[in-house]
């Protein structure tokens, strides 16, 4: 009777106690790590924000033109806020990784290992996106100025199209770095891009054949005519 009682209640309880003795300290450690990490992340955000404000980071970013983009997101109050939150997110990320590592279970260790292996891809994708934003901005502005100086009526639309195209290309490359649907995305991009070019060629060459001819004729004629009548220097 006693052995039945032991088998039914005491042994499972002892096993649970033994397991708990292993798990609870780990859980407590994970919890403490997360609490300390959260606090450190908050402090890091606060300090970074103050430092960026002291360095007049907002004004510096304002000159690059990224400020308006940050404003438009409606998520961040200012470039300094974005920087501070980024640092906070980084501290959080490392805290979680640290906590997972501390848990020391096969699953958490594997997760951490995979994540660490993935970090270079994340960095590469982030850099590609950053570069994409900068390049798309630069190229679209150049396109806008060229179109305005050529007095094309749809100058802004052209600039917007150029920007979307360059950003799309950057996103496709970034996603490829992250190994997220790389081949289908690449194929989809190629199809859409080729489609746009083909559609534009058709629209210009067939749909607006007369306009295209007149425009080219006018272009050739006015460039000569203007030189004949007017000198700026």
């Amino acid at each position, binding site marked *: 009777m006693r052995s039945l009682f032991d088998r039914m209640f005491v042994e499972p309880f002892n096993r649970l106690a033994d397991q708990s003795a292993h798990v609870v300290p780990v859980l407590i450690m994970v919890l403490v790590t997360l609490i300390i990490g959260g606090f450190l992340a908050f402090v890091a955000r606060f300090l970074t924000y103050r430092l960026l404000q*002291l*360095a*007049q*980071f907002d*004004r*510096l970013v304002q*000159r690059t*033109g990224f400020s*308006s983009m940050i404003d438009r997101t409606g998520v961040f109050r200012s470039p300094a806020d974005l920087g501070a939150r980024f640092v906070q997110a980084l501290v959080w990320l490392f805290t979680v990784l640290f906590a997972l590592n501390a848990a020391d279970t096969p699953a958490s260790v594997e997760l951490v290992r995979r994540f660490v292996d993935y970090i270079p891809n994340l960095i590469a994708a982030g850099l590609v996106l950053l570069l994409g934003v900068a390049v798309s901005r*630069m190229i679209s*502005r*150049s396109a*806008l*100025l*060229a179109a*305005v*100086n050529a*007095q094309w*009526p749809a*100058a*802004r639309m052209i600039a917007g199209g150029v920007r979307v195209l360059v950003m799309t290309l950057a996103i496709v490359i970034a996603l490829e770095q992250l190994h997220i649907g790389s081949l289908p995305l690449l194929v989809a991009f190629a199809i859409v891009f080729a489609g746009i070019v083909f559609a534009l060629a058709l629209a210009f060459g067939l749909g607006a054949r007369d306009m295209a001819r007149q425009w080219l004729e006018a272009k050739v004629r006015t460039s*000569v005519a203007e*030189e*004949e*009548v*007017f*000198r*700026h*220097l």
Partner: protein
Amino acid sequence: MDELFPAELKSRLDQIGEADIIVGIPSYNNARTIGHVVRAVSVGLAKYFPAQRSVIMNSDGGSRDKTQEVVMQAEGGADDLLLVSHPVHASYRISTPYHGIPGKGSAFRAIFAVADYLHAKACVVVDSDLRSITPAWVELLARPVLEHGYDYIAPYYQRHKYDGTITNGIIYPMTRTLYGKSVRQPIGGEFGFSGSLARRYLEKDVWDTDVARFGIDIWMTVTAIAEGFRVGQAYLGAKIHDAKDPGADLTSMFRQVVGSFFSLMEIYENVWKKVTSHEAVPMFGFPFEVGVEPLSVNTDRMVHAAQQGISDLREIYSAFLSPKTLADLTSFVHRNGQGFHLPDELWVQMIYEAATAYRYRRIDRDHLLQSLVPLYLGRTASFVLEVTESNATQVEERIEKLGQVFEAEKPYLTQQWDAAGKERLHAQPV
């Protein structure tokens, strides 16, 4: 220096040894007109400088229309109807391709190098597409250098009232305001200068910039004034070009000329900040009235360009213009037709704010300059509409008035410039 001289040119220069006068003619596909220019120069050298050793140098940008052959075959120099006495020395003639960035500035650099190599006392440069050049131009540009101790002679022409709008609207009044010398055609294209100034030009490291292109004229003028060389002007009469001017696209020209001028403001900041007034520049030659070719200008197209610029480039303008200037520009530019008017004060403030933004790189410099083109066209339209009924004298008075506004607003430039400098100093990361 050796990279500027192909072996063939070097041996030719060694043959020549030394020269008193170098006349440089930059060219690119000017076979149609360069023969006349070479002939006028040859006769000018033979007639006015018979005792001097002279070289006519064609610095060519790779013409494919036999420009170089025309230069070498052009007659001249011994025209009995024009000469009182025959020259002691026949002028040498060189036609050589230049090296470096394709452009007028690179062509000039080769001319400076040849002048330096041959220890020339005076140099003259003339455009290869001139139809109104006469032999007297060589004398007017070279004699003040050879005999009166001048280092730099700028041209002075009679031009149509609508002609030379970058000169009249920006470069002339700003040169006068900033550097204190009233050089009326600072980017005229024809200049005389001393051998020592040519050497000074050669020492500068600017040949990878817009100075190598259309920026060369203003760069030469400002360098000569700002570095204290003795500057004069020569009255040349009318300036008539060939109709065809390859590569003369407004946006590029504007960018190169105005960009070079703004860059010079950075280099010579310590010079122009001290200048408080301007003085007249001595004039050589005998001023006379000439007829100029009629010009027609499509002001509607220019007004439309300005209006489109203000609408489409607002984001770019807001990066370097003050909110007040931008608001005023918007309000004035959106007036149509004959009522269109851009006040001088607004134009000047806009230029000064742009120059400051260029200096402190508030926006990509190339984008800034390109964005000014529609506003420049608006200003040109405003000027044309204003002087439609005016004669040449009244137009000169009008340009003089603009110059006075540039001068009156100079404290605004200094204040903007200094404030931007301080702002940048404080914005340095701690």
